[in-house]
């Protein structure tokens, strides 16, 4: 009897839902709560999309970025995910592998010409596509370069490791700065693997062995990694960089206030730096420590959740959102790097001659996505702790060994993460 009533109720509510509107609703979660500009642009795209066709209506629920991933995990555990899911690039394989997401039936033409790092692939299929990427550069002032008599590095001819250290030494010796280099230790979390693992890769190491994704042995504690670790530690022991206790305000404003000569920071901080009065800021490419210069890549992207019944609708929405005018709008609004060159040309900052144009080159020329594996989420945490410990003076070999053991144990506990 009870079951009958429930079934009846369900049926009647579905009737109301389908009777009232011909369009199928696609719910969507987005990480931009609290970012007004971003929310408005996305709201505009959704409005346009809902008006442009009659099959679907997208409705969005925004979450604060800092807790977005936790919300999604909680939603998945309690069977409560939306249809369209917003996902951070490196996390996508984890969600795809676990069934939180399903392949996105989007055509290859729709993503032709997009930066590689804006297309999320796992297991041979496309799961997510982004409208933008982010990039990291070495911020400094032209005046600093001139005063210290340093060559301006370029994408084709970046600083070598020695040149970089010589630059730091010169900045330190000048006595003008509290610290020569600000790597951003106050930004705990994903910043560490995103910003610092490219240094490791430039030394010739990696977080995991990308040939099999089954171990970190040799990659994270081999000779190259040890060399990287010693170098990393020297930044702090020799007083070039502020350590893990850096206060968050110094991270946000220290470079602008002139406390640091060089700052390792993302493109999202560029506009604030310019507005903060650093007119002669220059964005330098990553130095080359022997194995080529690299920076991290992969930002927020859209995909379909595992429980969504209308992946075709999601794909239609994503294709719609990929129009150059929207890519350009996001870029102009929040300073992100548009996914295509055409869109870049339409923007204020990334167009040829624009203030942030160097970043587009960096994204194209130096970007290397973080390890594409469901295990990355855990490996990133382990890597973060290792970086903090080494910075604080822990023995390099022991720390990296311990990190390798932990990553390997996790891969084993997850039966190889489906590679």
């Amino acid at each position, binding site marked *: 009897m009870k079951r009958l009533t429930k079934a009846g109720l369900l049926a009647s509510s579905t009737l109301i839902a389908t009777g009232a509107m011909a369009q199928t609703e696609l719910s969507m979660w987005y990480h931009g709560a*609290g970012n007004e500009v971003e929310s408005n642009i996305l709201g505009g795209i959704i409005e346009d999309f809902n008006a442009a066709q009659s099959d679907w209506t997208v409705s969005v629920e925004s979450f604060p970025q800092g807790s977005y991933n936790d*919300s999604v995990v909680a939603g998945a555990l309690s069977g409560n995910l939306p249809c369209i899911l917003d996902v951070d690039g490196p996390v996508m394989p984890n969600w795809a592998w676990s069934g939180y997401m399903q392949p996105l039936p989007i055509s290859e033409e729709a993503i032709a010409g997009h930066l590689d790092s804006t297309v999320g692939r796992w297991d041979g299929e496309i799961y997510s596509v982004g409208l933008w990427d982010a990039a990291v550069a070495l911020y400094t002032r032209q005046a600093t370069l001139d005063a210290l008599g340093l060559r301006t590095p370029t994408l084709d001819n970046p600083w070598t490791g020695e040149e970089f250290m010589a630059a730091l030494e010169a900045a330190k010796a000048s006595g003008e700065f509290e610290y020569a280099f600000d790597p951003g230790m106050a930004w705990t979390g994903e910043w560490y693997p995103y910003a610092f693992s490219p240094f490791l890769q430039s030394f010739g190491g990696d977080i995991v062995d990308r040939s099999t994704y089954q171990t970190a042995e040799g990659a994270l504690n081999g000779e190259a990694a040890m060399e990287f670790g010693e170098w990393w530690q020297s930044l702090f022991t020799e007083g070039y960089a502020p350590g893990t206790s850096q206060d968050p305000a110094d991270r946000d404003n220290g470079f602008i*206030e002139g406390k640091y000569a060089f700052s390792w920071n993302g493109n999202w901080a560029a506009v604030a730096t310019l507005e903060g009065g650093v007119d002669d800021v220059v964005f330098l490419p990553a130095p080359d420590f022997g194995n080529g210069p690299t920076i991290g890549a992969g930002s927020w992207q859209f995909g379909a959740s595992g429980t969504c019944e209308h992946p075709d609708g999601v794909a239609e929405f994503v294709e719609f959102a990929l129009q150059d005018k929207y890519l350009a709008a996001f870029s102009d609004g929040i300073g992100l790097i548009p996914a295509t060159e055409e869109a870049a040309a339409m923007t204020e900052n990334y167009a040829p001659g624009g203030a942030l144009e160097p970043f587009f080159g960096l994204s194209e020329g130096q970007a290397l996505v973080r390890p594409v594996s469901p295990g990355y989420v855990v490996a990133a945490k382990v890597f973060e702790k290792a970086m903090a410990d080494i910075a604080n003076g822990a023995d390099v070999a022991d720390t990296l060994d311990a990190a390798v053991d932990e990553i390997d144990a996790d891969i084993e506990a997850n039966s190889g993460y489906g590679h």
Partner: protein
Amino acid sequence: MAVITPDNRGLRLVVRYAVLTLIAIIFIFPLLFMGMSSLKPDQQLLADTSSLRAFLPVGDLSLENYREAFERAPVGLFVFNSVLVTGTTVLLSLAICSLAAFSFTYLEWRGRGLILSIILATLIIPFETIAIPLLLLVSKLPWIGFEGLEWGWLNSYRVQIIPWIADGLTIFLFVQYFKDLPRELIEAARVEGASWFQIYYKVVMPLAGPVLATAAILKFLVMYNQYLWPLIVVQQESYRPVMVGLQYFFQLNIAWGEVMAYLTLITVPVLAFYLVLQRAFIASIASTGVKG
């Protein structure tokens, strides 16, 4: 012993106030820092943090941060949600926990000691460690609402309220207090033929002012500062409380002035609640001790 002259007394009074004020300075500075910072533009705010200027209303002051905070997030909605959830929980908690404590303190029944021990043991369990099992549980619980039977408690006020009504600490607080009340009062009422509920309601509760105030404040703080729980059970903005709302302000480059403005705004209800309770209960009870 020194003879107490008027002068001597005056001096002692001054010393007392001096000590009290000195301690007060140590405790007040976070609120001062918060309040003053909320009036300053970011650059100045951060520059001031390294000196005593951080606690003074100096420099370029304005309410700009408040205006921007309201633009960034639905502050009023968050405060409303928090006050509603917190207020309801506190009231229900006081009723249910004091009733249970009454039973544990005054009534003799089989299993009483064991149950009380179990309840006290739950004090040890940090919430963080049971959050996921609890999430799975509440996502499957039934509820009878206006539309009949429904399943799952997510995205509601009830999911933020009901699991938090009863807790070991509140019960324990009442038990320890009730133990100090004179038993003769209870027995006398019993002899006069009052029912247990009448004794609870008419004899014990009127004497429970201080503990009610204490329990209410402590519960209020716990509820008002909820973060992890609403984060995982509430996906709709319309049910979000203040601490989850705080996350709206932690973007990549944090607008510290707005953060301070938001914090100042959300601190007002707690402070008001504390001051009201202090006036209503503690002050009046202070002069009329109840212990024989």
